[in-house]
């Protein structure tokens, strides 16, 4: 599932102009950890309480698999603002299905499902900044 890595980062180097999306500076930082409001952050409790805290296996049924981000960047659910999303809840995917784009340093990287199954949940919002290893989709494998 994590085989998509550095090589993916150059796959769409020419797609920059075509996709033509602005960098989402306004929403920058949403995915990353907010500082505790208290002046005394408590050691254990305050640690990295981000949406990326993820592998919350307890809450998921065992037959769900996460598609995680293999890089740091900005999440795009569709190839451009006027197009439909790559996948919706209920979409069927196979290992080669592109599920989203992660933009990093102006490079638009297609992320593939790497497995066959049905999308159960989309865990991040369009244009959201995401960190390495952050779960993006829940998929029920075939």
């Amino acid at each position, binding site marked *: 599932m994590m085989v998509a890595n550095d090589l993916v980062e150059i796959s769409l180097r020419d797609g920059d102009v075509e996709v033509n999306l602005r960098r989402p500076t306004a929403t*920058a930082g949403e995915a990353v950890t907010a500082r505790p409001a208290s002046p005394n952050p408590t*050691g254990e409790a305050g640690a990295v309480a981000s949406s990326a805290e993820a592998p919350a296996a307890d809450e998921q049924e065992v037959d769900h698999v996460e598609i995680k981000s293999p890089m*740091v960047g900005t999440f795009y659910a569709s190839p451009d603002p006027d197009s439909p999303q790559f996948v919706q809840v209920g979409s069927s995917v196979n290992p080669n299905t592109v599920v989203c784009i992660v933009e990093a340093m102006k490079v638009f990287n297609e992320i593939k499902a790497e497995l066959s199954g049905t999308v159960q949940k989309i865990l991040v919002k369009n244009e959201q900044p995401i960190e390495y290893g952050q779960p993006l989709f829940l998929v029920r494998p075939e």
Partner: protein
Amino acid sequence: MFRRILIANRGEIALRILRACHELQIETVCVFSEEDRGAVYLNLADRTICIGGPFPRDSYLKSDRIIAAAEVTGADAIHPGYGFLAENAAFAEKCRACKIEFIGPGADAMRLLGDKASARALAKKTKIPTVPGSDGVFENDSEALRIAERTGFPLMIKATAGGGGRGMRIVHDKTDLLTAIKQAQQEAQGAFKSTDLYIEKYLERPRHVEVQIMADHDGTVVHLGERDCTLQRRYQKLVEESPSPAIDGRTRKDLCAAAVKLARAAKYTSAGTVEFLVNSKGKFYFMEVNTRIQVEHPVTEMTTGIDLIKMQIRIAAGESLDINQRSIRPRGHAIECRVNAEDPEAKFRPCAGRIEQFHPPGGFGVRVETYGHEGCRVSPRYDSLLAKVIVHQPTRPEAIRCMQRCLHEFTIEPIKTTLPFLHKVISHPNFVAGTVDTGFVERTF
């Protein structure tokens, strides 16, 4: 001034930079690897972002991920700390190409001074003494003789491919030169399939003395005194102090002036360190430049009362130095000991695991830089540096006494550390007398 700095490092230096940013009221983003997830120092960052797996090559060395992290978090500068990408000129260039300031020198100065050959050439050009020798391979016996005369004895014959002492000869007298060359060639041929040799002056029992410099974009360059880092083990510094107990006022002045001259010649900006070897007669030779903040920078902070990290950030943001050479007045004596998570009784094997007890020393003139605390995990994946103990006292004997007290007081359990070893080293009569050299630790312990 920067609005938000991304810290591209981990452990004690990440914490050090976080604190400086807080005081400058700059927001912070701290990257972390999956191995460092949950580390307590990350709580002090305004934001944190995971950039990859436990191995440095998958995270802290991944320049594209770090720059992407700066972009998505809206950071306008990156502080690299030391190690990892701190001396990577290509990374500095890439940051700046993405309109993110790299907090460090310009890429050109990094390349010029970071390469030993070009740094040595610049030093020679600016009339700073370098270790005399053949400036490369000599071709034949007569050339060797000529160079040897110029270099003076004792000197060393070294194989360019050499290592571990093989293909190396110390020559004390001209009459032994040609025999030594033959022996070295034979040895080098056998060991490395190469007979290429060069000549370098043999420095007997040298000391390692380095000069902290700071330079802004207006061309102001100042030095902040020297640090003596002679106590090393396998080229790893163990103990650093300032001022050096082994140089006199005249040598200190010349050494510091040489460092400033070299930095000027390289159009250097930011914090940097010019390293020298000093022989037993007080003659010094340029060795190399470190184009970054160093592990031992707190030694200089203690004697000068100047926060080097805050100054580095201000310079990177385009501010002019708010100090001049005359306003820098080092005072007292500072010593730093590096406490590593290593077992000194098992060949300094790195130790990892959970810290159950952690009582750092404190009190008058004591500073401890560490990411450690009770319940903290020490990872086997990274550098074993666990804590730096820095003391500052009016005199060197008092500083040594204070450091002994601190090393004695510092409790870390159950992880093995170099605390008892350091105590032995700084209590040795030769260290107390200030007469050690770079080979002392390996010869003695």
